[in-house]
């Protein structure tokens, strides 16, 4: 085990050096602005992430006009909250209902709605999820500790083009009287991919 760990460690070091070397070459050649790299990383670490999508969902839960707009023209409705651009140019919102649960995957690579969810989690990009989601979504849900009634239809959306999908989960029971902000806090990233459910009000802490 100690040996394995050491091996892994030295490989990481190797990769670190390799990327650093490539960055030096590209920057010396004038192809990249090193300061732009920092802005790109900071954007996805601190500005663009799943809290954006949670605000979209919470708005849809409390505002029937917005909900209707979101389901008819998600790109425009989401843009009205300030979320636009790269990997979210063509958005479609998918509403979960009592009889239907939606799940989103990209079996061919890792297409994901960046403006509303940020960068995809490791499992979304991994072979197990990409292989199984289209064939055994209930098995995948079980890996996330979710069990849906047998009567619920499951619809899997394979993102094979530049259309990006956002799942609008069902509003949990007992969430009446919560503010939009409190509702957004119930919306998990996984619930907007379709591999999870929102938190319930008692468990929001």
């Amino acid at each position: 085990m100690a040996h394995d760990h050491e091996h892994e460690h030295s490989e990481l070091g190797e990769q670190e050096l390799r990327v650093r070397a490539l960055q030096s070459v590209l920057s010396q050649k004038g192809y990249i602005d090193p300061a732009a790299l920092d802005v790109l990383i900071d954007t996805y670490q601190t500005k663009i992430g799943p809290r954006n999508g949670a605000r979209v969902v919470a708005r849809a839960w409390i505002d029937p006009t917005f909900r209707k707009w979101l389901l008819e023209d998600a790109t425009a409705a989401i843009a009205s909250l300030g979320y636009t651009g790269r990997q979210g140019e063509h958005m479609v919102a998918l509403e979960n209902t009592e009889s239907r649960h939606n799940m989103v995957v990209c079996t061919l690579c890792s297409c994901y709605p960046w403006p509303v969810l940020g960068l995809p989690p490791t499992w979304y990009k991994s072979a197990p999820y990409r292989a199984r989601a289209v064939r055994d979504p209930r098995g995948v849900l079980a890996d996330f500790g979710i069990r849906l009634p047998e009567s619920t239809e499951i619809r899997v959306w394979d993102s094979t083009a530049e259309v990006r999908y956002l799942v609008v989960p069902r509003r949990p029971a007992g969430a009446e009287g919560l503010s939009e902000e409190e509702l957004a806090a119930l919306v998990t990233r996984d619930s907007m991919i379709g591999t999870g459910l929102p938190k319930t009000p008692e468990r929001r802490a």
Partner: protein
Amino acid sequence: MTYRSHADLGGKSGYGRVVPEPEGELFHAAWEAQALALTLAMGATGAWNLDMGRSARETLPDYARLSYYAIWIEALEKMLIDRDLVGKDEVTAGRMLHPPRTVARVLRAADVPAALAKGAPTQRVAATPARFAVGDEVRTLRTAAPHHTRLPGYARGKIGRIERVHGAHVFPDTHAQGLGEQPQWLYTVVFDGRELWGDDVARGLSVSIDAWEPYLESRA
């Protein structure tokens, strides 16, 4: 040489369980963040397009063995070397040894927010009317394309139904080969789970793909 994608994983067995991950966990090493940023910044130069990038990644012989961002770095190096933007000797040396080539654009730090907010829409004005309408039954192509394509293997030669019409979009099959955007109508096509996987699949499953018109023919 035949084209082989190692990324077409839908429906394949033997991969084990999915391991959930907390929301805040984005990168597992500092180099992963650098790999992301370098790939985005080089993509912004216009030296290649999105579909060429995907094609470079999915054809890496080591695809299955590499972690996600390792795939990105490997493909980035390959595209840079193939286009003579960087020499193999420079990758090894970690410094510039030959004069740079000209790139169309350089993404400056100040322009990053606007560039990300603008994105790169792929919808184009359609040159022809759509061949299919919502509700139409279609059959997908039976044979594998000898180049980059976005029709997954599990959905080849299957009967489905047009559910949404998205307008005309850049066609990845030609775009990836440097043959231009050649926009084609794009549809969401939905399949019954049993059509894809046979009768032993759980009831109540349907799966959709987004498919460009050349991937489809009328069922009749």
